[in-house]
C-alpha cells in the first residue's frame, strides 16, 4: 500500500482551473538533435495561457506498429498568448513520442491543458538557480523567462551526457541568464562537482531559490543543500499519467509532509512541488 492521500493540499480547486481539450495545428516540427524534437502548435485558448511548469496531455498519433493508447504528458516549453501558440520540446522514447514525431506541419492534434500547478516565483527573490538535466531544461526554460520578465536573475546549470545533448542555451542566454554546463563526458556533471558549483553560487548570494527538474540525483543534492543553507525551492516531477486531470489516481508519488508521508497526484497537486517535501524516486 502507498501512503494515504494528502487531505491538506492547498492547490487550486477545479473551479479555479481552466483547462480545455482543444484542436491544435502544427506550425513547425523539427529535430533539435538526434533524440529531441521541437513542436510548435497554433492552439486556441486556453492553451497559450499556460504558465511555466504546467503541462499538456497530448493525443499522440498511431504510426505503424505504434498504437499509443493513453495520451502523453509534456511540459509547456513556451506559451505565447499573443501569437496563440504553445511549444513542446520532447525526447523520442517509446510508442507515444514516436507517434508524435510523425506529425507534419499542417496536421492537427488534440491537446488537453494547461494542466497542473506550475512554478511559483517570489518577486522578493533577486536571483534563482535552475538546475536541469535532459528534458528538464524544457520545463525550466519558461521559468527562466518568467524570472527575467520579473527582474529576477537566473543562474542556469545544464547537466547532460555530452555537448550534443545540451539544448536551449540560446533561449536561456536571451533571458540574460548565466549558464553553466556540466557534462558526463568530461566528468563535470558528478554530484560533488555540481555541489561545489552550487555552493559557489550561494556564496555569491545568488541563490534566492532552487529549481530543478529531470534528475533524482540532482534533486536530492539541491534538497540537501537547500536544507543546509536555508534555501527554498521547487522541483517538477514526472509520473506515468492516464487522465492528466486528477481523476484516476495513477500518477501518485509520496511526499514528506511534516512527520507524515502522504501521497499526491503529480497531475493535479503538481507537477511542481516543494523541493523539501519531495522524495527520491
Amino acid at each position, binding site marked *: 500500500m*502507498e501512503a494515504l492521500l494528502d487531505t491538506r493540499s492547498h492547490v487550486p480547486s477545479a*473551479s479555479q482551473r481552466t483547462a480545455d481539450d482543444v484542436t491544435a495545428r502544427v506550425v513547425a516540427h523539427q529535430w533539435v538533435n538526434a533524440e529531441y524534437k521541437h513542436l510548435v502548435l497554433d492552439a486556441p485558448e486556453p492553451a497559450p495561457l499556460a504558465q511555466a511548469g504546467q503541462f499538456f496531455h497530448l*493525443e499522440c498519433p498511431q504510426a505503424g506498429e505504434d498504437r499509443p*493508447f493513453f495520451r502523453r504528458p509534456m511540459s509547456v516549453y513556451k506559451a505565447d498568448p499573443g501569437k496563440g501558440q504553445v511549444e513542446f520540446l520532447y525526447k523520442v522514447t517509446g510508442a507515444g513520442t514516436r507517434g508524435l514525431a510523425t506529425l507534419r506541419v499542417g496536421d492537427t492534434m488534440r491537446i488537453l491543458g494547461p494542466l497542473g500547478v506550475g512554478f511559483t516565483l517570489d518577486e522578493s527573490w533577486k536571483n534563482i538557480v535552475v538546475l536541469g538535466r535532459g528534458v528538464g531544461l524544457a520545463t525550466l526554460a519558461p521559468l527562466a523567462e518568467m524570472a527575467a520578465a520579473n527582474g529576477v536573475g537566473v543562474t542556469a546549470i545544464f547537466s547532460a551526457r555530452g555537448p550534443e545533448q545540451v539544448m536551449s542555451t540560446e533561449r536561456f542566454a536571451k533571458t540574460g541568464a548565466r549558464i553553466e554546463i556540466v557534462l558526463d563526458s568530461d566528468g563535470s556533471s558528478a554530484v560533488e562537482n555540481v555541489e561545489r558549483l552550487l555552493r559557489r553560487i550561494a556564496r555569491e548570494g545568488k541563490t534566492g531559490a532552487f529549481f530543478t527538474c529531470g534528475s533524482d540525483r540532482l534533486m536530492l543534492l539541491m534538497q540537501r543543500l537547500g536544507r543546509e543553507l536555508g534555501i527554498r525551492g521547487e522541483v517538477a516531477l514526472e509520473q506515468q499519467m492516464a487522465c492528466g*486531470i486528477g481523476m484516476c*489516481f495513477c500518477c*501518485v508519488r509520496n511526499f514528506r509532509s511534516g512527520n507524515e508521508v502522504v501521497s499526491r497526484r503529480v497531475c493535479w497537486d503538481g507537477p511542481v512541488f516543494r523541493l523539501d517535501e519531495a522524495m527520491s524516486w
Partner: protein
Amino acid sequence: MVDLRVTVGSLTLDNPVMPASGTFADGLAQIVPFDRLGAMVTKTITAELRGGNPTPRVAELDQAMLNSIGIPSNGVAYFVQKSLPFYRRFKSPLVVSISAPSADAFAELAARMELPGIAAIEANISCPNIEESGKAFAMNPRSTDAAVQKIRNATRLPLWVKLTPNTSEVAAVARAAENAGADALVVANTILAMSIDIETFKPRLGSIMGGLSGPAIKPIVVRMTYQCAKAVSIPVIGCGGISTAEDAVEYMMAGATAVQVGTATFLRPSAMIDVIDGLAAFCDRKGIARAADLTGLVRDAEMAVDDLEAVP
C-alpha cells in the same frame, strides 16, 4: 427531436450516458458541462481512510488499460464535507459509489448516504469480501445476496449494484441482486488481467495483477449485459469499453437501459458528450423516436442461444 430520456428505477435521467466510477472527478468539470450528463457517478468511497496500491498503477496495452489503482480514499467524512458540495452545484443526479469489506460495513456506509444531493447509491460489490477470503462479493450469488439485502435494509435511496465480470455465473449473480432488492445493475467492473514487460521481466503493475478496461473488453461485457438483461427485470446499466455512440447503441440493443463511459474519458475527456450527441444522431438516422426504444432491440427472436455450443 429524439427523446433521450431513460428511466432507471425511480430516477428519470435526461439521457442514458454517465461516467463509470473511478474515471470521473471534479477536474473534468473544466472540460465537460456536468449538467449535460445523464448522471454523475463518484469514484468508490470507503468509510475509512485508505491508501492505494503500489506504483506503477496503470499500464497501457493494445486498445486496453490495465490498472491496479485500488480504492485510495479519504474516507466518507471528507467526501461529505469536501466533494459533495461541489457536485451539488450541478443538476444531474449524483450517484455515490461505495465499497466496504463486509456486508455489515456496506450497510453502515450506505446508511450514511441519505444526504441532500445524493440521488442513488452504487454498491461496488466487485470489491473483496473479507468474509470470503478476499473474493469479490459479486463472484457468487450467495455473497451478493447477503450484501445487497443488508444494504437494501439500510437505505431508502435507489440502490444500484455493480457486478464483477470475473465470475462464471453473472446471470445468477444478477438475479440474486435483483431478489435482494437492487433497483438496477451496473454490468460490469474491470476484468482481472496481467501483463509482463519481457525486457525487464517485471510485471507492468506494482501489484502484479489488475483490472482490464477499454475497447478490448467490450465483446465480453456486451455478452454479460445481454445475459443479465435476459435474467432480470430491473434496468441494467452497461459498462465496459464504451468509447463511441455506436458502442453505447450496441450495449443498449443488448439490453442496457443506460451506459457508463470509463477509460474513454481518459483518452478523450469529452467522450461522454460525444456519446450523447452520437446517440441522438443514430436514433434520428434510424427513425427511432426515443433512446429508450434501443433497449433490448437486438434481433434475436428466431435465434435460440444454443447453450451447449456457446463455448467452442
